[in-house]
């Protein structure tokens, strides 16, 4: 028996919990330890503190391994088990669900211990995993995230390390954004109108050069001061021949619709144009508009 487990054959060699001493709460391998907790032996009256100080049995085991150099192999299983069972009575007043996990850990340790003590069947020699492997893996895994939690806590975070900068906004009125309109939507709406218009009216809307319509509005705007303007001044030669023609057509159309007046005092004399549709009522806005119904009756000469 040269197995490492053989070394522990003589236990329990662990000293009893040192309740006779005042400060050290436990003694590990003969060394009194002042910090809480010292090893798996938890004095019942310290149990509550103990449970709060550690995040669970893995945390405790890690602590013991890293700080106390506890050899997991050197755990007196029988003693631990006996003590844990004793705790059950104490824990009834405490958070039992937390304590249960420590009991589970004790069971795991006991199981490891017992598996290591048992002789292995020769056939499985070399195949059976070390019973501690799973525990070690879990300890390592837990340690990573314990460290990650500490790193996370070190990050600059709002409220603790920084604060949002904000300026006052004197006017919090909500801006209204008009809806988007698809050109095709508008065209389709128009088509519907035209379909209905054909039902209601005898005159269909003719195809028109829209640039003339646009120019009509522009000419009217330029004439909005109700003054006579030189006929030539309405043209912009830079637009080229087509632009001149469009302007000319729009003037003819405006004249036909009696929206402008064209004056020539004598043959070959200068021609003047004046708006009959001047924006005289512009400033008066809505109230100046006639009733919609009478308005509708106003334009039969279309």
């Amino acid at each position, binding site marked *: 028996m040269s197995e490492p487990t053989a070394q522990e054959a003589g236990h329990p060699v662990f000293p009893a919990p040192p309740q006779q001493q005042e400060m050290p709460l436990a003694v590990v391998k003969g060394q009194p330890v002042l910090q809480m907790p010292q090893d798996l032996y938890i004095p019942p009256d310290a149990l509550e503190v103990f449970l709060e100080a550690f995040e669970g049995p893995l945390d405790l085991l890690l602590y013991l391994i890293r700080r106390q150099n506890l050899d997991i192999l050197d755990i007196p299983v029988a003693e631990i088990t006996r003590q844990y069972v004793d705790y059950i009575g104490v824990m009834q007043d405490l958070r039992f669900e937390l304590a249960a996990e420590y009991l589970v850990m004790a069971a795991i340790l006991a199981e490891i211990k017992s598996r290591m003590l048992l002789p292995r069947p020769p056939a499985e020699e070399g195949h059976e995993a070390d019973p501690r492997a799973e525990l070690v893996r879990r300890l390592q895994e837990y340690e990573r995230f314990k460290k990650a939690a500490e790193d996370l806590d070190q990050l600059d975070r709002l409220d603790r390390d920084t604060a949002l900068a904000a300026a006052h906004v004197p006017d919090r009125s*909500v*801006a209204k954004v008009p809806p988007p309109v698809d050109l095709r939507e508008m065209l389709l709406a128009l088509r519907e109108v035209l379909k209905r218009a054909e039902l209601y*009216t005898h005159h269909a809307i003719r195809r028109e050069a*829209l640039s003339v319509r646009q120019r009509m509005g522009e000419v009217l705007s330029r004439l909005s001061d109700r003054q006579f303007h030189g006929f030539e001044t309405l043209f912009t030669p830079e637009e080229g021949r087509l632009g001149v023609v469009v302007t000319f057509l729009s003037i003819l159309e405006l004249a036909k619709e009696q929206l402008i007046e064209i004056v020539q005092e004598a043959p070959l004399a200068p021609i003047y144009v004046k708006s009959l549709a*001047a924006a005289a009522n512009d400033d008066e806005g*809505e109230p100046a508009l006639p009733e*919609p119904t009478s*308005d509708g009756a*106003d*334009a039969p000469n279309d």
Partner: protein
Amino acid sequence: MDPNLIRHIVEAALLAAPQPQTLAQLAGLFPEDEQAPPGAIEQAIAELREGCADRGVELVEVASGFRFQVKAEVHAWVARLWTERQAKYTRATLETLALIAYRQPITRGEIEQIRGVAVNTNTIKQLEEREWIRVVGHRDVPGKPALFGTTKAFLDYFGLKSLDELPPLAELKDIPELEPQLPFDITPPGIASATLSHDEAGEEHAAPEQTQ
């Protein structure tokens, strides 16, 4: 104590505090054993105020203390943080807009004549507020009705150089394949008139005879 540090502290505190801060409150940020020298906070405030010349916020003093606030000149943009999308335009609005685009200059009465229903005042106002239509004059008939035309903003919005780029009316009638591509509901022609009456809440039906 470094005046720059004091200025940084005052600036950060004014930007972090939910309320305006008085000089006394600002002085209270410094621990007793490391008070800001007398006048240092006033000095920091003065410097911060000047430093706002080329910034989007300004440091102002109000009844309850000092605060940074958004400058009025950029408010129009900042206000868009709290935007509210208006509801989609109704069919009535789109029809009115289309008629103004294709038949300008046109009066409201003429639009009503073609549509067969009265045009809600809000419809016109909506389009005017969007600056897509404007009054280009008044027809010289009794009542002097306003003549509406479209604007450059209208052309810009739809990416048109001129109205000529709108499809001709004749073409419009012959493009049924337009329909399947449209993302919105197309009312089947059969029930179109019935549905249209619900388009706009305040829209009264004009008697069809009126348009003859």
